[in-house]
């Protein structure tokens, strides 16, 4: 068990002896500000933990049984003054976040997730849970590509759970996912959001090179996004790419002759058919292969998918769409994610 920083609300293990496995619990008594009597400024934290995690019901299942997870990360984001910040953070195993920073004057806090192990291996299961309080604003990204190595007879999994309160905003813009030879990977993301919240999630999936230079030697990638708005399931995005079995991966309905996949999901009450048409018009000129699809979702929201032979064109398409929305909705400058 590792504390991200002293003073940030992290408890040790609190076991319920005789009641099954030991469940790590976050101790609500140790709050962000002054839990251990340390100055707020040292950690950029300016408030106390707003979320009560005292009862077992609030914590059991949040972080699960320790051996179950190779790494866990939990963040509660709230507003403190004009800025958003993690008022509680917790991590364990091979997941961490860098200290928060602010890319502009909007108050949006940026957290960078890092995997000190460098890659996901077979049997590894990772859990990321993020609560964003009403009105708070989070940009979540990664320090580098998520790499999936061989997972013989097994698979690596990442489970993410996002909760967005009223008027909360999350931009989740990780680096590409690279799956190497004989890798199987499941990425399951569940989002529960208020109808007034705003969500942007992007993903680029690329095959790693195998020693003989061939692409697509990974076994299977599943990307499942389940988004509920106001408690009602609105989007079930369930992509499965499985080279080698079933439909060939180079079939026209799977990847064609392309190798890289880009995806963007936006859930926001301001999305309408006119906005989808605007973004389509904006992106069509930078879609040289004509492999871009964009559609209006219930919610409302929009989905974008694109195929390519490399990462850059996909980053350009997704980046242009994200920057357009930033300019339109929050008057923020185009995103420049310098990696720290």
């Amino acid at each position: 068990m590792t504390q991200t920083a002293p003073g940030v609300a992290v408890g040790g293990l609190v076991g319920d002896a005789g009641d099954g496995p030991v469940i790590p619990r976050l101790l609500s008594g140790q709050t962000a500000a002054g839990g251990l009597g340390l100055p707020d400024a040292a950690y950029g934290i300016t408030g106390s933990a707003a979320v009560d995690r005292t009862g077992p019901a609030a914590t059991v299942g949040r972080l699960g049984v320790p051996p179950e997870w190779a790494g866990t990360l939990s963040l509660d984001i709230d507003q403190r003054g004009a800025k958003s910040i993690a008022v509680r953070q917790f991590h364990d195993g091979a997941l961490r976040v860098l200290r928060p920073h602010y890319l502009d004057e909007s108050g949006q806090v940026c957290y960078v997730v890092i995997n000190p192990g460098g890659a996901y291996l077979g049997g590894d299961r990772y859990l990321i849970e993020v609560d964003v309080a009403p009105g708070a604003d989070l940009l979540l990204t990664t320090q580098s590509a998520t790499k999936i190595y061989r997972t013989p007879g097994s698979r690596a999994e990442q489970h993410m759970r996002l909760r967005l309160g009223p008027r909360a905003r999350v931009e989740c813009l990780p680096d590409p996912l690279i799956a190497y030879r004989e890798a199987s990977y499941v990425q399951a993301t569940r989002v529960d959001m208020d109808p007034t919240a705003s969500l942007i999630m992007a993903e680029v999936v690329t095959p790693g090179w195998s020693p003989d230079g061939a692409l697509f030697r990974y076994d299977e990638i599943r990307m499942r996004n389940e988004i509920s708005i106001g408690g009602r399931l609105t989007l079930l995005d369930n992509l499965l790419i499985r080279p080698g079995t079933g439909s060939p991966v180079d079939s026209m309905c799977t990847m064609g002759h392309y190798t890289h996949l880009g995806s963007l999901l936006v859930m926001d009450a301001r999305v309408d058919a006119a906005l989808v048409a605007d973004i389509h018009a904006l992106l069509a000129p930078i879609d040289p292969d004509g492999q871009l699809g964009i559609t209006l979702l219930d919610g409302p929201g929009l989905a974008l998918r694109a195929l390519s032979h490399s990462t850059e064109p996909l980053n350009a398409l997704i980046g242009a769409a994200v920057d357009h929305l930033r300019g339109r909705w929050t008057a923020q400058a185009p995103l420049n994610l310098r990696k720290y």
Partner: protein
Amino acid sequence: MAAAPSYLLPLLQLSDSALPTGAFSHSLGLESYLHRGLVHDEATFADWLTQFIRIQLVHSDALAIRFVLEAETEAELHRVDRELHAAALPREIREAGVKMGARMLEIARAVHPCPELEAYAGAVASGACAGHPALAFAVAGRALGVPAAELLSAYMFSTVTSLTQNAIRGIPLGQSAGQRVLRAAHREVGDAVVLAQTLPREDFGVTAPGLEIAQMQHEHQRARMFMS
């Protein structure tokens, strides 16, 4: 002489590719492949159809039918409806499901009036359910007592037949070529029936990027024969 099972004629009627559900105006992404020139003859259409069966027909429609047959409560049926609707990202596919679902439901209620179909129709009317032809078909089939494998075969082959009729008009293909494609699809549908009864729940709604992109691109295609 043995009589045919009582469900056979209602099943044949609901499986008729000429059933007025509007299926003749939905290519479900095929038209984008025609537009791009990737589907242009019997062989390329047969290839597309195989992929469509393996990807969308099995993982969305057929799994939905199986989950309806397995549903123990009305809430479970509603959950299947919700997931099936939410899994259709391309707008035209979602709208096709709602439109054809309403027509299939109306026809099924006329073919086999029963409380189960009335309850589902009520849920669609109230907005609790979105409606989808596979669900109306499954609710009717369940009330009729159609065995799962037969219900799945009938639904999938009916969809395959509608798409083939659309390909005959859209590519165009000769009628004989269309019948050869349909005959060749027997084995694929047979495999799909087995698969639909064995896939895990996490596979519900699985799709593939190429097909989704084609279905999304259709929205922005200028000259179109089909609504999806």
